[in-house]
């Protein structure tokens, strides 16, 4: 029982949820509602800003303040809102097309400015709302209505982009692991600064199974690696595999066969930017033989001053230096004369 007595259902609205049955978005919505209840969030102090896409319908289903804005621009709207009222808990909901294609520019800039907002990028490697064109995260050679002979573009690596933009919190989760997602949502919320959480989301209509390698029971343990701060990088059915660094090169080792123990493994350090960059580069196409496991969890977390705090500090500094602005002085300027 939470102190403000709100339950997950108190965060739902009376609007019919319009996602396709079986869509991964449902799971994300459910986890966000649960987490908000568990964190005792006050619905009146939360604003959820989205762009356009299936994923961006999200605010309509959350009983908080919210805005379904225009395609790709949620980070810009959220920036203005956060600057106007830094006390709000601001969440940005975006998709792989919304956040990385049309809105890629804004994403870079909000991350480098480090406004204190939480960004949830629902990655389904497809344009859902416009009925199934390939997206910037789609794998090469994807056949869609717009790419009948296969897509040509090399995919974007969202976490590598975020880290390169000097994001201060970079994490990945998946729709089919609610527990992990809840932990990641709570970590995002806790982080002061822009948190970037990519969530692998299944679009069962246009890109079913895009992430099954990572999410399916049969293959999950051998293809996904779950990061824990201070813990060695292990994965595999019985945690029998690990990653060690051979100089600068990550190397998969089999703890049961190779001559290594857990002590030889790479120990995850969320504060290590260089290692985080390498982890973000664990991005092999899972169709490829011997691919590195895909990391989930917090790849990177650090602190940096937030844009809106500094902006407001400058206003105070200006008042300290020059005194609170006087309207008559402003209007008159420095040189006047009488007639």
């Amino acid at each position, binding site marked *: 029982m939470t102190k403000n007595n709100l339950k997950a259902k108190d965060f739902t*609205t009376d*609007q019919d949820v319009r996602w396709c049955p079986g869509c991964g978005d449902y799971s994300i919505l459910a986890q966000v509602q649960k987490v908000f209840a568990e964190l005792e969030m006050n*619905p*009146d*102090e*939360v*604003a959820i*800003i989205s762009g*356009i896409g299936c994923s961006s319908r999200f*605010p*309509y289903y*959350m*009983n*908080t*303040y*919210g*805005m*379904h*804005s*225009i395609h790709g*621009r949620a*980070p*810009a*709207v*959220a*920036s*203005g*809102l*956060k*600057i*106007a*009222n830094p*006390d*709000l808990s601001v969440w940005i909901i975006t998709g792989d097309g919304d956040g990385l294609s049309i809105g890629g*520019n*804004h994403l*870079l*800039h909000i991350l480098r400015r480090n406004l204190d907002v939480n960004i949830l990028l629902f990655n389904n490697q497809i344009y859902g709302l416009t009925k199934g064109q390939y997206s910037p995260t789609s794998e090469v050679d994807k056949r869609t209505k717009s790419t009948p002979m296969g897509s040509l573009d090399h995919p974007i690596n969202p976490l590598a982009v975020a880290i390169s933009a000097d994001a201060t919190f970079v994490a990945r989760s998946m729709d089919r692991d609610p527990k992990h997602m809840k932990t990641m949502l709570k970590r995002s919320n806790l982080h002061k600064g822009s948190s970037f959480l990519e969530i692998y989301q299944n679009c069962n209509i246009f890109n079913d199974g895009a992430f099954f390698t990572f999410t399916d029971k049969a293959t999950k343990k051998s293809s996904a690696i779950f990061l824990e701060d201070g813990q060695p990088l292990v994965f595999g059915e019985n945690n029998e595999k690990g990653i060690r660094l051979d100089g600068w090169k990550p190397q998969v080792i089999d703890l049961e066969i190779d001559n290594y123990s857990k002590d030889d493994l790479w120990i995850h350090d969320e504060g290590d930017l260089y290692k985080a960059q390498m982890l973000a580069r664990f991005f092999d196409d899972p169709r490829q033989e011997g691919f590195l496991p895909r990391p989930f969890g917090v790849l990177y977390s650090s602190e940096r001053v937030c844009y809106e705090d500094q*902006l407001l500090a*400058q*206003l105070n*500094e*200006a*008042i300290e*230096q*020059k*005194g*609170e*602005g006087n*309207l*008559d002085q*402003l*209007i*008159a*300027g420095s*040189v*006047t*004369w*009488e*007639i």
Partner: protein
Amino acid sequence: MSTKIEKEEITIKFAGDSGDGMQLTGSLFTGNTALTGSDLATFPDFPAEIRAPIGTLAGVSGFQLHFGSRKIYTPGDECDVLVAMNAAALKANLTNIKKTGTIILSTDGFDKKNLRLAKYADGENPLEDESLANFEVFKIDITKLTREALKESPLGTKEKDRCKNMFVLGFLYWRYDRTMQGTIDFLTQKFAKKQDILEANIKCIKTGYHYGDTTETFTTQYKVKPAPLEKGTYRSIKGNEALVIGLITAARKSKLSLFYGSYPITPASDILHGLAKHKNYGVKTFQAEDEIAAVCSAIGASYGGDLGITGTSGPGLALKGEAIGLAMMLELPLVVVNVQRGGPSTGLPTKTEQSDLLQAMYGRNGECPLPVISASSPSDCFEVAMEACRIAVQHMIPVILLSDGYIANGAEPWRFPNAGDIPSIKVNFKKPIGEDKTFLPYLRDEKLVREWALPGTKGLAHRLGGLEKEANTGNVSYDPANHEYMIKTREAKVDKIADFIPEQKITMGVKKGDLLILGWGSTYGVLESVTKELVAEGLQVGHTHLRYIRPFPKNLGKILKNYKKIMIPEINNGQLSKVIRDQFLIDVIQFNKIQGVPIMKAELKYAIKEVLENM
């Protein structure tokens, strides 16, 4: 001893290479002129390139000042005096001097290289041939005199030569019988930390002044008496400055924080610069990554309870279109300032044009009518800025404010108001409500305006968005009848603003008669003064100038009926003409000049007379 001649009005043009400091010279001379009590208008004319090749025609930077002992409406058609620092500056302005005008030349700017760069034919030199015979020409070797004056100065030759414009300024101060102290004080402040430069500048001003005084070639000084301006306290103001001050004043008067999201673009950047200087007035400026982010950030700020403003020029307005439509659907306040410039595309960035009226009116997807208002002079920008903010917050709507490059950079004397006399702008945020009540975000009052409900307020959690909304609840709705109803309602909401703006007035001339001169924006001065002259000649002409273009003032239709013909002069291809024809089903006579420069009095007067003669 020189003789002193009194003049009613004088137009001077300072022209030189971008690096010659003509803009500063012009501004300082303008400031000095204002203090004498003359009325004035200025027209700075920048080259397109920041650093065009030295000495070329493309690199000529000009500053025109018109001042007089009567009301001054325009920066003047042709100049009485041209100051030309080099051959290119002379060539570029030769057609702009009155037949008997005066040319002050810096002879060192007419060497072989300069003549070639100014595209004079081989062997041709206007200083030596008869081409300037009709003018009064003063040839001064300003470089030599400046260097001579500064021979003791520790500055390098390059830095010394940069003081040439101060010599010019000093000389003109003598010619127009001025005092130098104000300028010296200004320089003392500006170069407080650069003693050598300060001393050199002062030395050159004084040298220029004494040069006029002691050289026997110069026998005449000119004097212009103060103009019969209304009594009061004045300052000099440029359009972009007035916008900055007006926006800040509106924020104060509405008790809102000002948020300005913008992306640099000529000629709007000075608004961003100006606002950024005033953080101690609680002004938040946000230099966004592009125009789309700029407008979206302003929308977000308005959603959060700030006065969200964005500013740009034509190309930027095009980028903002989709987001402005969003703000219109969200029914949140937003002010969009567009300082117009020559278009289309990148067009003529540094030149003026009334380029975007149609873009402002119609340049969005779907049925998206919005209030559009325009500024008619530099000082008018102050009031228009406050009006834009008032309409935005009181009618919960994005307002497009049109200025242009001409008034943005042009200056005029302004009898400014007391802050205390400016009425406050009432804003009501929706108050918190109890759990037993439901909040209907799209419920409207008698003005058809919904309430401004801020995130963070108890009980008002609601979702906004660009999808069509159901009346009252604001829920997403695909209902056909609802869509039509909402479109009509949003249009009616804009039209209703007409109940809250002043009626249109005839500012000059007859209230009923042969011809109405109808204008908007920066052409105010030229239309007003031409009308004044025509009326003095006994012609049946009236002038009215629109501030509010959408909606039009309610009595505009009636005014249009009071004249046999209507002429609409514009610095574009006839944009207001289209709107007037569409709305009132009447024909109008167009007068269009699309050359990146203001309309000249003479050309307009000629055109009007032709119309009147053929009636």
